[in-house]
């Protein structure tokens, strides 16, 4: 059992928490919280992969771009959420069932 295995095990728990939140919650805000937690897990994966394979500079160069992407994605999600609230008057995902088939 080495340090790397323990780190990734804990990261797996983090990602599981985020996914559980996305599956269990009805509120769009909470789904975004879950999404954020999952993406934190993915970032930790990339940095620890870089750290353990002696590639940390490369990993950091990648991670800075990832953070920029994450900000825009979260801003988009929140904008859609606010728009949905204005149009449908709700932030509840399970009420989104206008289309079936």
């Amino acid at each position, binding site marked *: 059992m080495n340090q790397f295995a323990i780190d990734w095990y804990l990261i797996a728990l983090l990602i599981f928490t985020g996914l559980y939140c996305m599956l269990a919650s009805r509120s*769009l805000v909470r789904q975004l919280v879950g999404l954020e937690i999952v993406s934190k897990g993915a970032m930790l994966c990339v940095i620890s992969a870089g750290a353990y394979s002696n590639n940390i500079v490369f*990993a950091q160069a990648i991670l800075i771009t990832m953070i920029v992407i994450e900000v825009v994605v979260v801003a988009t999600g929140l904008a*859609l959420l606010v728009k949905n609230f204005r149009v449908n008057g709700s932030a509840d995902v399970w009420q989104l069932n206008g*289309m079936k088939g």
Partner: protein
Amino acid sequence: MDKGLLAYLLIPLFSALVIPFAARGREKLADILANVTLLAGLVNLLWLALRPSVIAGGFEEIPGDGLSLLLVTAIYLVAFCVTFFSAWFVPAGMPNRRAYYSLILVSVAAMTGVVTAADFFTLYIYIEVLAVTSFALISTDDSPKGLEGALKYFLLSFPASALILGGIAVLMMTLGSLSYDNLHIFMSSDVPAGPVVFGAALMMLGFLIKSGVAPFHMWTPDAYQGAYAPVSAHLAGIVTKISGVYAVVRMASLLRFFDGRAQGLSALLMLLGLVSIAVGALAALRQTDLKRMLAFSSISQIGYIILAAGLGTPLALIGAVFHLINHATFKTVLFLNSASVEKATGTTDMDKLGGMEHAMPWTSWTSVIALFSTAGVPPLSGFWSKLLIILALWEAGLKGYAVIALLFSTVTLAYFVMMQRKVFFGKKSDAAAAATEVSAPLLAPAVLMSAAIVALGLLFPYVFSYLKMMAGRIIL
């Protein structure tokens, strides 16, 4: 990054940044700028690929690996049709009109980035940009259905991104690099593949979710049905194909499926492709909404591409890429025609439509061409790509797969004939009675694309020589 094609990324980006300032107070200028940008790019690309000297030389002069150039041309063609259609479709005074054109141009730039990327992380960035622009495009018209589709797409697409990033981490650790070339060299060597294939499989799973293959297809019909009408053509024709299916095909060529280096992954991919063909075709049979039926048909056609990519032999990859191009042409025609029908009658519910043939002859006949191409009726282009895929399966000894693929091709014909009968033939319904053919500019994109379908089918020997050149470059 393919430097020769960089201009096709930068110029749309520049136009997108100019439009909000230049078109302030002059709405029509936004239409003109977007159309001129895309048309100029398209003419340039066609000159690059179809000069007589290039054709005579068997396309050996094409720069890069050939695949990028082909797909950039398809991207520009579909996007040009969509913006041309939008210029007459979008109502005057829509508050986010300038942002709409800017977003289409940014998505064209992002797609060009996707197909010219030479590194998995770069690929991931551009796919993310593409996803972000498509959410906003889907909900352009502020309808509740559009927002619903956009939100469902959003919530399924980002867990897929996390999978891709996990794959990137594993690949970085075990391969030491993320470039396509390194992966390709590694897979050609005799080193045991081990976790490199595991990392690739994680990424592949993410791309499969983004392309809407069968077990992960829940978001596709909602997003296509709910999307603003011209946007659904853009989305179904090219966006989801580039953001998911292209990546799968590219990875299939890099992982060298044909020499059995990643046997398990290849088998899984083929199974998913087959499931997707079946699920899409059977679900399409019992739809009542025109756009939703087209969406399920799209899932079924993606299944053919994934099946061929999973097989991974040169012939199968040629078939996969050609079917990708054909899918872009015929789905654009069908979705643009559904938008025309919606504009003329105000509905896309097939039970309320009927007898549109006399009211809308052009729309009806371009639909016939597109759906015959989808179903694989010779000599249209869709016939050749399906033939190549089925031949490749037969050649590889997978006769069962070949027979099932052939059978579901007839199911495709069945649901399309059903659709044509309900919408265009038969008795005139109340909704159709008042309808008239839409104006000529709205028909032009569908006619142009139908001409492309016929031309690609009739000039198949030239197309095949191009594709053979491309397969040689991406596999070796």
